């Protein structure tokens, strides 16, 4: 199971990468994409939307289930991965890079203290 070292993680299996203290990119983890199976559709919000930490921000449909995706941090959505509309399978193929979901202008970088580090997420997965 792939986990990226400097990313932060949620219990709902989202990852977030804080770029420069102001923007962050989020997606779902390798564990999440593998549990969901082949992803067939991603419903993303529109840019400009303000979102609270742990608020519902997207949903991902796979052949097995439809799952809500929650934002790891608060902020304003500045970009969505438009490529997922025609190629949702990018999440299965490359969940930490090409399969990213949303780019945020974050309102409080300190919110990361309520997220898990890569090590903590690894132990969390082992406990499941």
């Amino acid at each position, binding site marked *: 199971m792939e986990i990226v070292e400097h990313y932060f993680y949620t219990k709902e299996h989202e990852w977030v990468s804080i770029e420069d203290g102001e923007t962050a990119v989020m997606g779902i983890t390798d564990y999440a994409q593998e549990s969901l199976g082949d992803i067939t*559709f991603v419903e993303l919000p529109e840019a400009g939307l303000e979102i609270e930490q742990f608020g519902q921000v997207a949903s991902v449909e*796979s052949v*097995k*289930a*439809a799952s*809500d995706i929650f934002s790891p941090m608060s902020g304003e959505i500045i970009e969505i991965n438009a490529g997922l509309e025609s190629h949702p399978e990018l999440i299965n193929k490359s969940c930490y890079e090409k399969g990213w979901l949303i780019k945020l202008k974050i309102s409080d970088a300190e919110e990361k203290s309520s997220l898990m580090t890569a090590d903590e997420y690894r132990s969390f997965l082992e406990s499941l």
Partner: protein
Amino acid sequence: MIPYIANTQDDVRDMLKVIGVKSVDDLFVDIKPGHRPKSFDLPPGVSEFEVIEALKAVGSKNLTNIKLFIGGGYYDHYVPAAVPALASRAEFYTAYTPYQPECSQGTLQSLYEFQSSICALTHMDAANSSLYDGGTALYEAMRMAARITGRNKIILDGGVNPIYQKILKSYTTNLHIEFHETTVVHGQSSREDIFKGLDDKTAAVIVQNPNFFGTIDDHSDICARAHDKGALVIQNVYPIALGILKTPGEMDVDIVTGEGQSLGLSLNFGGPYLGFMTTRKKFIRKMPGRIAGETVDKYGRRCFVNTLQAREQHIRREKATSNICTNVSLCAIQAGIFMALLGKEGFRELAVTNQKKAEFLKGLLEKIPGVEVKRSSPTFNEFTVCLPKDTAVVVEKMIKKGFAAGFPAGRYYKGMENYLIIAVTEKRTKDEMMAYSEVLKEAIQ
């Protein structure tokens, strides 16, 4: 006759013991004695033969030989013998929900063909495999528009079937939907009213073509104005009329619904009927209900499956697009067979025959002094006349002569007590129409 509950006295005693109550009556202690029936007044059991005789006696009270000139959303069309003959095959008749495509190809393909025919008829991209009936389909379309737009104001045209209007209002009693009701002017949807109501809170404009008074409209301008405001247009249609009318797709409608009873289903004393729905490709994930889709199996052979199931309750739970996770398969298959049987040319011919016959009756009725045929707008196979007296009385008199004269508009529209809405299908003969005209002449004396 034996009771159909097969538990013996011993079974009952054992079950009561397990749950820890003394008697069956103890299971109902929460229902206060005043609310319990003293008895069900059921007669003692009788033989099958006696039951049949008793039911026949009740059935004989039905009027089975009246000539139907009444429509109001449900029409007396001919059902070709091939339709029930094919639809009643056990493979269709007893089939369950096709969750297992490996053993449901026949049902799935038939539903796929039904959907394809409905799309061709409406000129829209995608259809679901049916909803309960026209009225509930319209309600589902309204909710769908609210989901898509994130808005809750609905502009409801007065020409929409009043029975459907009632359904919309009763279903939304506890929902946050705000209705803005508009009028019908000379048989057409009031542009003035609709455009006045259209704003950036509007989820959808709901119209009907032909409308309840039978008149035909072209809603293209309403679609354009609604889209400018980010609102959708929902059109309820009479499928037979689409054989000759400008289609909702051509008008740029967003969601189309309709009652499919006229597509090879009998009037059936009110049901089961068939609701259909079509929409644009971009909205398919917001569309309720089941969709049969075409795909290929692992050998690359064409096959069919239920598709887009992730919108549905059994996967999405409370986030499902609607509580509708089902369809009326047998009715849809029947309609699919009907459309395939007629084909493109046959369907058009059927529509033309309906329209021509209605025009013939209009001509006859116009010659009756005191009867005014409304001609401010073109009509399909249903039209409105104004009589010199209360329509309800006329209808009452004519039913005794073997004619269901039409739909008394006053039943739903205040001030229209003298208006009668008359439908003519391909089944009505020239002789029947001439007789109708004579009987109406007498009835208004």
